């Protein structure tokens, strides 16, 4: 990987750490907002419990006491006996003296007015009970004022609670929205995370997996789109290097195989490789009933050439022979250096007659070919060939027949092609 790539491509750990940090910050902010709302709800609940509810109870108590006062006032007017009126008056005084009334100025004034009026009424009634009826309308007016005050106080108490409850409800609604927002944020982040994982991790890994699974020296090197994550890019590059190494190894393997199967001097396949290939070709031809022929060839008087002109001259002759063969036989035919100056041939899909024609043509061509030896001398070498049909017998038998035919060709004066059947 180039240094520049490393600089502009973030590592997966760093990228996901940044993502996690951003998420933690956002989520933390939402949690903080929710905590603030919770604090507001708790504060409102505490206010409700310690301020509003005691206040409500205070107002309820005040309203109840004013009602009680009103009730005792009514009793004073409705009581037939002076003793009962006095008892009612005592209760009016008791209630009017209660701190719950005294601490509320409007109620205290009203209670004092009512008490004074009732005391005065009781005194007048003690002398003349008929004054009760005369003074009752005014009491009704006072009583009505007290009832209105009771209503006002009750409503005020209820409003105290509803203000805090409204505040709590509003906060809870806001908190619910924030909670939904938090859920959406978490959902969005997970979706984004999955999308990013898919785009920058899963898909590239799938591509790498596919590329590695189908990595082949016959195929071009895998190509990847530009990866954003350094680790993925490194793996992709490694896959490319792996392909390159595979191609290199394959070339080396082929080179070694060539060295193992070929004759080093002539470049023809060696005897071991020929035998393996020929066995397979003969089995195939015999399975499908196709014609096939084998031949053994031997350079005439090669030993004498070697003895006369040295091994270097012999090598030149052998290489020249192999070079002419390459131009004269079909791609499908097999030719090997069988040993020394002896060569073996296999002609798949060729009858003995066809192979004979081909071999005869080559024998003539070789015999007429001038070979320049290392010392500058031009020589011509002839070739004797024994040919046999291999379509109905094993390779060894066919080669044995071809060998007999070769022997016959030598015996008959060399430089000729003898078909095994003729020899037999």
């Amino acid at each position, binding site marked *: 990987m180039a240094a520049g790539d490393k600089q502009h491509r973030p590592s997966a750990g760093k990228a996901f750490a940044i993502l996690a940090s951003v998420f933690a910050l956002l989520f933390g902010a939402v949690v903080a907002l929710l905590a603030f709302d919770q604090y507001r709800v708790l504060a409102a609940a505490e206010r409700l419990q310690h301020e509003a509810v005691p206040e409500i109870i205070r107002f309820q108590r005040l309203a109840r006491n004013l009602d009680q006062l009103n009730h*005792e006032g009514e009793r004073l007017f409705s009581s037939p006996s002076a003793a009962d009126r006095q008892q009612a008056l*005592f209760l009016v*005084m*008791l*209630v009017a003296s*209660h701190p*719950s009334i*005294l601490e509320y100025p409007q109620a205290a004034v009203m209670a*004092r007015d009512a008490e004074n009026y009732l005391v005065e009424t009781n005194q007048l009634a003690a002398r003349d009970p008929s004054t009760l009826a005369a003074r009752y309308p005014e009491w009704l007016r006072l009583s009505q004022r007290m009832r209105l005050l009771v209503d006002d106080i009750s409503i005020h108490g209820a409003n105290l609670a509803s203000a805090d409850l409204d505040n709590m409800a509003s906060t809870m609604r806001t908190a619910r929205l924030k909670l939904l927002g938090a859920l959406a944020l978490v959902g969005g982040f997970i979706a984004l995370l999955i999308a990013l994982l898919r785009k920058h991790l899963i898909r590239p890994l799938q591509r790498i997996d596919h590329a590695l699974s189908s990595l082949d020296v016959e195929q071009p090197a895998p190509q990847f789109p530009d990866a954003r994550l350094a680790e993925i890019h490194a793996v992709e590059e490694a896959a490319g290097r792996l392909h390159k190494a595979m191609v290199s190894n394959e070339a080396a393997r082929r080179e070694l195989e060539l060295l193992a199967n070929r004759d080093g001097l002539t470049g023809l396949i060696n005897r071991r490789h020929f035998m393996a290939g020929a066995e397979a070709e003969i089995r195939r031809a015999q399975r499908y009933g196709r014609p096939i022929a084998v031949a053994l060839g031997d350079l005439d008087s090669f030993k004498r050439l070697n003895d006369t002109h040295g091994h270097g001259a012999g090598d030149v002759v052998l290489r020249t022979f192999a070079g002419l063969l390459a131009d004269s036989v079909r791609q499908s035919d097999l030719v090997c250096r069988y040993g020394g100056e002896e060569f073996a041939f296999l002609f798949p899909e060729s009858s003995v007659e066809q192979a004979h024609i081909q071999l005869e043509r080559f024998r003539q061509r070789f015999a007429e070919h001038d070979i320049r030896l290392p010392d500058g001398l031009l020589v011509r070498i002839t070739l004797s060939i024994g040919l046999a049909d291999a379509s109905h017998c094993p390779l060894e038998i066919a080669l044995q027949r071809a060998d007999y035919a070769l022997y016959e060709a030598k015996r008959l004066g060399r430089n000729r092609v003898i078909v095994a059947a003729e020899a037999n």
Partner: protein
Amino acid sequence: MNRIRALALIAALFSGLLQAAELKVAILVQDTAQLSMQGDLLPSGTPGADLVAVTDELAREICRRINASCAFFYVRLADILPGVEGGRFDLGFGNFLRSPEREKRVAYSDPLFRSSSRLIGKPATARIFATRLGQPVSLASLRDARVAALDGSQQQAFLDGIADERALTVLATATTAEALNVLRRDGADFALLPIRTGYALISRDKAQHFAFVGPAVTTHGLGDTAHIVLAKQQAALRRAVNKAIREIKADGTFQRIMHRHFPVFLD
């Protein structure tokens, strides 16, 4: 088997005895006839019997709630605070108002109810004083008078505080009934009493000699919340008593006790 049962019974009884604390409870009387009475043998018809009964019932209910075995002592107000302070009593039921001086000496329970103070006197006396003062009689305007108050009460402490300035003669009485007797005998012009006590006494006064005079007062420590007093070091007991008070108020027991003895419920 019988031996095991006997042992278990003894263990249960023993643990129960350990659990139930032994408390000495002082209850305020309103009349000397109620002093040193035994349990529920409250002399009927004595002045302020309703007040003693409601205090007694309340004290027994709280004892039951805190799982305490209580011994009750019926005493004067002046004996309760020193008794609690000195450890002779664990709980003092006397509807004690708060004051800085008291706060130094004893601890307070949560409030039982709220109270105020008001002058009591004969209407004729009130009219004479109104003429003399040139305005209706009130605690703020009262001068040159003999005023009775319960010995050891906030009312007495307040009157003592303004006595010289207002030329008042303060007559401390052992009980509230005695304060009324002093009034009845014209030994005092007025009595300054807690409103609930005042009501309980004058509403039962057959001759109906007395009336409330002037407005009720809650300032100068003469009104606000009334409490049970405890020794300062009895923090656990105070917590237990407060819990019992909360419970009896929440389940309506407190209201029922009050209603049994008073025609109106004023908390």
